[in-house]
């Protein structure tokens, strides 16, 4: 049976070159004799059954119906798919080649651009990412002051429409720098920097005020022609955000940025999420009292100041956790970070090594992430009724040495092959031909 499982696992890429998106789940699948890491409800030694893309049951023993495909896990592990709370995946192929970058639109004010329409489902990065258990990603645009709207994507599908789980998931703002940068290549005078900051902050205020005024105009029912207000794509896209219905993701790392963003959200009664959050540990009381969640992107960052603890970035999640701040762990959502989302689980492990309880570390890349980006009803944990977006692994997925054997996205059996495996096997073959490799 073990061999069968491995056989299934390997056969997919020995014969295939391109990865083929999986068909919808046609028969119930029962994974038995495994360790089911529910995240929401502890670890259950037993079985998990899913049907039509949804989890039906998790129990010690489940007797399968006749049409159920039964897979004996022989003690292997089942986890909910990992979630990248922010990522540039699908929008960027090769960051250094500008024509392959659809992550950064021109201009400072692009609330209307939508991530999912530019998501390339055939990106070579996607299969390498799901090979490491990351099955859902909140794909975000990332330029200027107001970057655009993100979409939550599943890491499989023929088209971006197939792959979209939720759109829009939020509006993204890069909070202006609140200090004065003096080091390095940054040559702008402090006066100019202050002016620029004022302009940027003013335009954010204006965006909310005008956005509300616009929304009032558009929502007023009228038959009078002269009262009809022409549409504006930018303002149109802002309506749900200025009225506090959908979250605004504020990308902010430095403590003054975080505090300014929180006070802005209070002033206008907005729903915000802090992304980045390098200094969030310095202002936990504010974040907790105002119920502001943090998507912490910086586990593998250097301390931002020379005098900070060498492990500051590693241990910040533990500090947020102890202070009761709602948080999750992400890897960089920047264009350059798109290819390395696959190391997301290692970020969580690093945080665990420096004080975060292991189960919280796992939660921080599954259920906590789902809660913050608003998809916890569908994914993030193994609970009946949720999507069967999960994977089988040979161990703890946060540990680097672990491999993911098989993943399912909404019950669809994902092709676990990827470009790297193909090249690996291609060149193994070369060395076999040369007689260097024996098997």
């Amino acid at each position, binding site marked *: 049976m073990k061999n069968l499982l491995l056989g299934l696992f390997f056969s997919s890429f020995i014969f295939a070159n391109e990865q083929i998106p999986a068909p919808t789940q046609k028969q119930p699948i029962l994974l038995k004799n495994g360790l089911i890491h529910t995240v929401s409800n502890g670890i259950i030694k037993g079985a998990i059954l899913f049907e039509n893309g949804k989890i039906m049951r998790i129990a010690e023993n489940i007797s399968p119906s006749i049409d159920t495909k039964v897979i004996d896990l022989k003690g292997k592990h089942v986890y909910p798919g990992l979630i990248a709370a922010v990522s540039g995946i699908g929008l960027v*192929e*090769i*960051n*250094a*080649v500008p024509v392959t970058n659809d992550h950064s639109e021109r201009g400072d004010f692009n609330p209307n651009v939508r991530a999912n329409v530019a998501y390339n489902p055939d990106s*070579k*990065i996607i299969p390498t990412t799901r090979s490491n258990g990351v099955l859902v990603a909140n794909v975000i645009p990332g330029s200027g002051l107001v970057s655009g709207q993100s979409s939550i994507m599943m890491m499989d599908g023929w088209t971006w429409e197939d792959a979209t789980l939720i759109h829009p998931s939020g509006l993204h703002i890069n909070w202006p720098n609140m*200090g*004065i940068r*003096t*080091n*390095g*290549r*940054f040559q702008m005078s402090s006066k100019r920097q202050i002016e620029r900051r004022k302009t940027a902050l003013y335009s954010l205020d204006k965006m909310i005020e005008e956005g509300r005024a616009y929304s009032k105009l558009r929502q007023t029912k009228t038959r009078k022609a002269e009262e009809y207000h022409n549409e504006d794509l930018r303002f149109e896209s802002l309506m749900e955000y200025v009225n506090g219905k959908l979250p605004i993701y504020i990308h902010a790392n430095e*403590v*003054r940025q975080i505090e300014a963003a929180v006070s802005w959200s209070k002033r206008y009664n907005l729903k915000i999420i802090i992304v980045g959050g390098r200094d969030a540990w310095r202002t936990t009381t504010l974040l907790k009292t105002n119920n502001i969640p943090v998507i912490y992107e910086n586990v*593998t*960052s*250097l*301390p931002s*100041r*020379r*005098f900070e*603890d*060498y*492990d500051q970035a590693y241990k910040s999640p533990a500090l947020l956790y102890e202070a009761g701040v709602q948080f999750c762990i992400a890897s960089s959502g*920047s*264009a*350059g*970070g*798109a*290819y*390395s989302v*696959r*190391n997301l689980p*290692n970020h969580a*492990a*690093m945080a*665990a*090594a*420096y004080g975060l309880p*292991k189960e919280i570390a796992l939660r921080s890349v599954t259920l906590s992430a789902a809660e913050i980006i608003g998809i916890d009803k569908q994914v993030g944990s193994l609970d009946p009724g949720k999507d069967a977006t999960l994977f089988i692994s040979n161990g703890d997925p*946060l*540990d*680097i*040495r*672990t*491999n993911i054997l098989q993943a399912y996205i909404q019950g669809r059996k994902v092709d676990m092959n990827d*470009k*790297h*495996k193909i*090249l*690996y096997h291609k*060149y*193994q073959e*070369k*060395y076999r031909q*040369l007689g*260097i*490799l024996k098997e």
Partner: protein
Amino acid sequence: MKYKTILFIVLVSFLTGQVEPAKELHRNPPRVWALTNAIIHSSPTITINDGTVIIRNGMITNVGSKIKIPNQATILDMNGKHIYAGFIESWLDVQTATIDTSLQAYWNSNMRAYLNATDIFQPKDKMMKNLRALGFTTAHIVPKGGIFQGASGLVQLGDKPKVLSNNVAQVIEYVSGGWQGKEYPSSLLGTISFIRQGFIDASWYEKSLEILEKYPDGNEPIQMDRSLSSLALAKKNKQPFIFRTNNELYIDRSNNISEEFDINLWIKGNGYEYRRIDEMPASFMIVPVNFPGKPEVADPYNSLQYSIEQLKHWDMAPDNAKKLAKAGFEFSLTSDGLKNRQDFKNNLSRTIDRGLDESKALAALTTIPAKKFGQAKRLGQVETGFIANLVIVDGNYFESKSKINAVWIDGEKFEVSPDPIINAQGKWILIEGNNSWELTISSNGGSLKTDSKSIKLANYNLDQDRIRFSIETDTLIQSGVTRFQGIIKNKSVSGRVTYADGTNGLWSAKFDSIIKEKVKKLKKDKASDLSLVFPEGAYGLDSPVPSPNTILVNDATIWTSGPNGILKEWDILFQNGKVKKIAKNISLPRGKALIIEGKGKHITPGLIDAHSHMAGESINEGFQNVSAEVRMRDVIDPNDVALYRALAGGLTTINLLHGSANPIGGQNVIMKLRWGNFSDKLIFNKAPQGIKFALGENVKRKRSYGRYPETRMGVEQVIRDAFTAARDYKKSWETYNKDVKLQRSSLPPRRDLELDALVEIMEGTRLVHSHSYRQDEILMLTRIAEDFGFTIATFQHVLEGYKVAERLAEHGAGASTFSDWWAYKYEVVDAIGYNGTLMANAGVNVSFNSDSDELARRMNLEAAKAVKYGGLEESEALKFVTINPAKQLKIDKYVGSLEEGKDADFVIWSGHPLSSYSICEQTWLDGKQYFSLEQDKFLRGRDSKIRNDLIQKILLSPDLGGKKMKANGRSGNRFESCDAFDSYTYEGEEK
């Protein structure tokens, strides 16, 4: 005898006066003076109370307390005044032009050694006046511009500056054009090599000229070069070479150059000398007193932008001169580098407050520079036979409240801030009409008092003996403003009063009594009570790391990375910095060793990173396509906190590499992370030399200034061409060295630092570490190497190495790769995480490198990726960051595995070293503990206290001016990587 000297000097000055014809009429002002009743500081250690100085024709002809005043002399009573020898400004920049159109110019405009500051000095009245106002009567003028900047000179600061010397020293500065530069060098790396090559060229030039003179027939003439000629002459005459320095590291670099070329080293200091005072060379230094301004810490968040190192410098910089004096350095002081030159006197007073001897300070302004600048017999003392350069002060110069009244230069007086001719201060009785009021005049205004009230004077002014003021009142005299003006004479005033309605009257006043003014006492500056740590700032060490003789770790899981594999619950003994013994059980007499309980712990060799840019102040010299002459060892920054952070992740040895801007880059340096030590002690001395090459996108990228090559075809040709040239070069030296006749009568080959390095590569003594990605270029370079008879030591990154692993193995190159980076640029589109395992399985020695200060902190987890991708055995995976990189760098005899006799470099982990959940608990190097969680905890506590105390101190201190500190100026994170997402660093350098 004395008389004769005087006569001689007088005669000379008379004659020099005759050179220029009179413009209108001859001018012969009186030139004989007697300054009497003064306190004369005739030298830094001798003071004459009630002394007299006789000046005749610009010279001091006599000094003493009871000397005869010549009849001819006009007596100037200096009662209460202090007289000092005129101060020498040891540094005054003279900007030079860049363009040298001479046919005798060097190939590079940074070479301007031929220039003389005295040829280009354009004195501006205002500048001269400002310098005199500080007491300076002579200045050492220094050309500024380029790298070899030319010769400095010494001038008198009179109206028409007289040159005392036109060639004091040759001046050198570490400048470079940066990434946008239009000429070599573009970096500190290149600048240092430029300086070294400059000295070599000068020697070659000198020798060639000698040969040409002796054997003009048969030798092709060489290009005449004014600069090389000046340099050679300066060196031959043992003239000083002054290096301008930015901090203590630059002083060290200058010292290295001076030792290599046996030159007379002087240092233009920077204010950071105190940081590593024990490491400073015993050279003459010209030191600024430019203390940093108050850091802006009022906003607690803003204060986060300052590092502890910066805050400490604010506190400790004014102690610099005192510390130099105490350590016995010979130095002079300069006002150069001050944001506001006027702060010089105050800053000097602060230095005195903090414990610098006044005599040392005075010497640093007078006798020392006089001696160093070759004028010990003419300048720096108030002594018979010296030039009449004097400073007249109304008190002790080194007290902040004293004022300079005048300076004398060449016996001519220049007023600075003369005493008022009348002192109006005191209580007066003012009479106006029938009114009699009390008038009080103080140093900054005054008041009028009637029986009932006191009115402040407005518009008070005292100009020589003319006084004026006004009062505004509605009850006295008339409603409105009443104006008084008058003349003071013999303690009485009489004058006119103008009433509010425009009518006039008379007023007078009689002096009544002296008033005692409360003098605002300036708080004396106190020396900093902080002690230095190494390196300065957070996590610096208070004292050298202790070196226990014997260390025993018990019952640990030992990952040897050697033939013994993994040993569970074994003991390991370290002695004298080496691995002494590894055995199942080692017992030692009690108290003989430091015992570490290893149960449950894992021990690995110290980790090794074969590709790092940490602690490199400069990374790329990318202007030319070959820069084999530059050396990373010249630009080590031992203060880089990245070293400490890497130690905290178990890293002990790095290969500090040049960047990847050009096909043949610079020479690398292997370092041990001996945190706290100075640059030279970080170097792994037994490691062989090496060099960085680079292929592919980084080197062929189009440059704004148009650099060849722009294709991989061109890259191949550049490298082939370089080695062809090196082969010819080698041959020309071999021919020359063999043939005595040739050596006598022919021009010698020119020694070329770039070609030297290439020859060493061909001879196998310099290892090549080549940045590479694609299989074609990897293959190509192995072929070139084989054509020229050498082996590539490592291919760095080598992300397509898995495609040509058999070629790597056959060639014998190591592969130092990223564990799993890919897709960040086009040439890594085929990079795979399986690269390491595939190559290893095909017989290549593989290591994983970081190329990143961040990743360097967790190389054990990088190794774990070889287990994940391709299923390498765990002990083999760990070797990717231990013995394998050691082999690649040819240091495996000493480090990389735990075997008896090897260096005691080891790490104690809380658990399995490849597990993401384990952390590094202790890092040992050479048998010394350089990191431990316990020590780290102590340092955190210590530093947060220092930080807090300093911020409190700053908040309570007055603003004393000074240059604003750039927040995080010297200690921000660098973004070190060949190929990080941002391939440009803050310095604008490409990795």
